[in-house]
């Protein structure tokens, strides 16, 4: 498999009153053609900023990409230095993106049909009528069928799940090779969540596209992804094949996260043993005040003086599994 997206050493800087912080620090990732890579981590760990950096949609005047390179198969040169007009054809053309909040990501004043037609008109130069026809077909393919005249509805007339379907239709209208899904189901009910995941899976199979799936929900990762990368305080701390990371997490943080996940039948067992659900002690450090050395060291039960001294390098565990921990072998 060839790498579709290759991110190397990405470092994104936000200017704050207290000085610059690094929400994304030295992140390297690659997504193969047709595969799903899950990017996992707590709120504020830099997942979404990574996604926005790929598309260069960081808030102006605040965010800036300080270092790194992002290459996309079929595009000459680095996405980070691509001229804005060529970058526009990458956005929505080669890379589609869906956001967390379907309620706020659609313009309330345009019908969903019009909004799905927009990328078609921008990237494929379709006429108004042709784009409208294509939009109805795209909406039908995400489960908003044309016979219900869904294309003519305004976002406020749709439920959350239907809005997310409409967002997916906007992102997929031009058949991107990579879909970035930033917590696409967080704002939805569990039942709708399952439907949206099923839809994404079906569309991925049908269109053969790769997906960068951002979530903090391990159940979805296990369900959908081939590989996963775990982020903590702006850095990737572990990445590898989903099955391997789940069965044998090598970073104490990943290990802790997996242990925190409630499992069926566990409640009974915990209550019987008068135990609480395990948690990771402490909280995520502020990006402005990161400890020296490993960012996770203050919360880590295995931390040694060496951990507090230097940031551990990304160490290869097996062919496709790497971890940023000095004591991974002991886990």
């Amino acid at each position, binding site marked *: 498999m060839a790498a579709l997206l290759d991110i190397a050493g990405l470092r994104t800087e936000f200017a704050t009153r207290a000085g610059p912080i690094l929400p994304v620090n030295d992140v390297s990732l690659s997504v193969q053609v047709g595969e799903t890579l899950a990017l996992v981590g707590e709120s504020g760990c830099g997942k979404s900023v990574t996604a926005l950096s790929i598309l260069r949609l960081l808030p102006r005047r605040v965010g800036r990409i300080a270092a790194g390179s992002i290459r996309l198969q079929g595009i000459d040169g680095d996405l980070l230095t691509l001229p804005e007009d060529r970058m*526009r054809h990458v956005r929505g053309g080669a890379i589609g993106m869906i956001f967390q909040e379907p309620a706020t*990501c659609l313009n309330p004043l345009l019908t969903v049909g019009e909004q799905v037609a927009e990328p078609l008109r921008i990237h494929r130069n379709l006429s108004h009528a042709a784009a409208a026809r294509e939009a109805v077909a795209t909406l039908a393919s995400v489960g908003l069928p044309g016979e219900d005249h869904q294309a003519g509805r305004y976002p406020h007339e749709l439920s959350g799940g239907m809005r997310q379907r409409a967002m997916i239709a906007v992102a997929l209208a031009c058949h991107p090779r990579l879909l970035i899904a930033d917590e696409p189901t967080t704002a939805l009910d569990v039942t709708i969540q399952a439907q949206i995941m099923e839809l994404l899976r079906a569309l991925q199979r049908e269109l053969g596209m790769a997906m960068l799936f951002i979530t903090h929900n391990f159940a979805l990762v296990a369900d959908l992804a081939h590989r996963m990368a775990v982020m903590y305080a702006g850095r990737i701390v572990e990445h590898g094949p989903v099955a391997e990371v789940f069965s044998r997490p090598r970073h104490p943080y990943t290990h802790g996260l997996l242990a925190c996940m409630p499992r069926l039948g566990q409640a009974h067992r915990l209550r019987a043993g008068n135990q609480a659900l395990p948690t990771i002690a402490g909280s995520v450090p502020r990006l402005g005040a990161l400890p020296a050395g490993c960012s996770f060291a203050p919360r880590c039960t295995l931390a040694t003086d060496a951990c507090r001294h230097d940031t551990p390098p990304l160490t290869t565990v097996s062919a496709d599994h790497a971890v940023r921990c000095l004591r991974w072998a002991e886990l």
Partner: protein
Amino acid sequence: MTPAVTWRAHPLAQAAGRFVGNPLAMAGLILLLAILLPVIFYGMLPGVDPNAIDLTALNAPPDGAHWLGTDGVGRDVLARVLEGGRISLIVASSAVCVSMLIGFLVGAVAALGGALANAAAMRLTDLAMTLPPVVLLLVLASIAGQGIAPTILVISLLSWPVLARLVRARLLELREREFVIAARGMGGGAWHIMTRHALPNCTDILIVFATLQLAQAILAEAGLSFLGMGIPPPAASWGNMLNGARSTVVLEHYPWQWLSPGIALLLTELAINFIGDGLSNALNPRSELG
């Protein structure tokens, strides 16, 4: 999937409903139509000629032949009020269109164009706002000269800054909204953001500005013409008809000659202002809550 569809009308349809339910605004609309229809269509009536001279009736008071009397050279005042209204409204509505275009573009460039464009556009706006309007009006008018086109230019150059600020404020907020970021994420460029997202989301501002500014522009035109800087005679405009009242003879003895355009101006202003207030209430999304 449960079709949890809330059946509510398009936002503009809701606003139209609120407008129709406002008696003052509807009265304004009816009054404006009552003025507009004869002003627009008087040319189709036989025997109404604003420049025809009836030498048998100089300064004649209102009677059956001349419903609003005649002026000093025997021209029918009613015909001239209608013609003057036509010119006033053409000038005012063109000026509003031009100033809306300038105001929206400057506001949009300021909000969407980056720090430098923002600074440049807003300092220009500040500059345009600090100049005293009457003096600027007179200077511009004396440079641009008389006639319809210069008058339109002068009025529109005066009125855009307010709109530019309103539009900028709205777009600064809109710029950070997720659907605009999403639109950029699917490849929308500056033009796309401006036409598909900025413009529709400024509709309410533009509509209210247009109505209230129309009233302002009619007054400005009348003021300019009154001062002899706007529409030159013999063409009729409400302003240059009012100019006639500068003569004490006309003021005292021939009140129909200045009362008629004055009342027409007053009623039009009132009607437009009622409509403008009604629109700004109707288009305010919070008005249904209060």
